[in-house]
C-alpha cells in the first residue's frame, strides 16, 4: 500500500518507502525534501519564512520557519541519530508578482531559499537538485522509494528532479 501524504503550509511530514509526500502551490514558500538513501526514510517540509528570531517573543509554530523546521524534520528522519549520508532537494521561493515594479519588493522567496541553503549547509546535508526562483508556483511530489521528485508548474509542465 502506497500512502500519498499531503503536507500543508507551515508543516512537515516524514515517512518511508514506498510512500509519496506532496505539497501543493508553493509560491514564495520553499519545499525541502530530505532523504536517507540507506533507510529510504524521507521528509518534506513547506516553510513560509526564513528566520524565526524576529518572532522569538511570540508563540510560534516551528514548522513555519526554515531555521527551526529543518532540524526538527531531520531529527525525525534519523530518529535522533547522526545525520550522515542524508541528501536534499528543494523547490519554490518564487516571486509571484513582479513586486519590484512597484518598488516594494521584500524578496521573501529569495530570502527563504538562501536561509534553507544555509541551514542545510550548516547541517552538512548536500542539495543534489533544486528548482527555485522565477515567478511561477510549484507543486512538489516526492517518491520515497527512489527520491525522485516531480515539480508541476502552472503551464502543466513536469520537471523531474
Amino acid at each position, binding site marked *: 500500500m502506497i500512502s500519498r501524504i499531503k503536507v*500543508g*503550509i*507551515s508543516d512537515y511530514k516524514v515517512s518511508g518507502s514506498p510512500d509519496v509526500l506532496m505539497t*501543493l*502551490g*508553493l*509560491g*514564495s*514558500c520553499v519545499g525541502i525534501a530530505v532523504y536517507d538513501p540507506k533507510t529510504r526514510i524521507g521528509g518534506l517540509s513547506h516553510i*513560509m*519564512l526564513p528566520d524565526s528570531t524576529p*518572532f522569538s517573543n511570540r508563540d510560534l*509554530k516551528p514548522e*513555519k520557519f526554515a531555521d527551526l523546521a529543518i532540524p526538527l524534520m531531520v531529527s525525525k528522519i534519523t530518529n535522533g541519530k547522526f545525520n550522515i549520508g542524508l541528501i536534499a532537494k528543494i523547490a519554490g521561493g*518564487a*516571486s*509571484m*508578482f*513582479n*513586486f519590484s*515594479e*512597484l518598488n*516594494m519588493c*521584500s524578496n*521573501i*522567496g529569495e530570502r527563504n531559499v538562501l536561509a534553507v541553503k544555509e541551514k542545510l549547509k550548516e547541517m552538512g546535508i548536500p542539495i543534489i537538485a533544486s528548482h527555485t526562483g522565477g*515567478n*511561477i*508556483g*510549484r*507543486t512538489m511530489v516526492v517518491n520515497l522509494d527512489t527520491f525522485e521528485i516531480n515539480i*508541476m508548474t*502552472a503551464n502543466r509542465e513536469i520537471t523531474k528532479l
Partner: protein
Amino acid sequence: MQLDIIKELTNIGGGNAATSISHLIDKPINMSVPTTEILNYDEIFEKIMPEDKMVTAIIMRMLGGCEGTFLFVTDEAASLDLINMMISNGIEINEELANSCIKELVNIVVTSFLNAISKMIDISFISSIPLLAKDMFGAILSSVYIESEQYDNSILIIKNEFIYQGDKIEASLYFIPKPGVLKKLFNKLGF
C-alpha cells in the same frame, strides 16, 4: 464586533464596485454578502478554493493611510466571460488585450470600492498599477499575505463575490491589510 464593521465596510465598497462593473459591461451585476472570516490555510483551501486550482489573479498595492493589497481572483472561464462582455463584437481578442482588459476592470473595481469607503472615512488612498499573474491559487494567496507581512497561520479573509444573472461569477475581491491598518481604520471611525 470589529468583524461586523469590516463586513459593513466591505459591503459598501463591494456594492459600489459591483455597480461599476455593471456600467462597464452594461449588464446587471450583484454581490453576495461579503465574507469576513478568520481561517487557517487548510480551511481556506478546503472551503474557498483548492490550492492547485489555476486562477487569473490581479493585485493592486495600497499606500498612504491604508496600506495593504487588493487581490482579484477569477478563473479562466469567468475572466473570458468578463472580457467578452467588456469588448464590443468584431474586435479580435488576443492575450495582451485580454490581460489589459481584466487589469483595467480591476482598476475600476478597486477605485470604486475605495471611493465608497473614503466617503465615510477621512483617509487618503493611493493605489499602485495592477499586476497580473496566472498561477495556482495557493501559491498566489500565500505569497500575497506574506508580502503584506501577514505571517500568521490563521488569516483574516475579507472577500466579495460577484453574481451575474443569478449565477455566481468565479470572481472575488480580497483585501489584505498590512498589520495595524484595521486598527487605524477603527480609530478613524471612532471605535
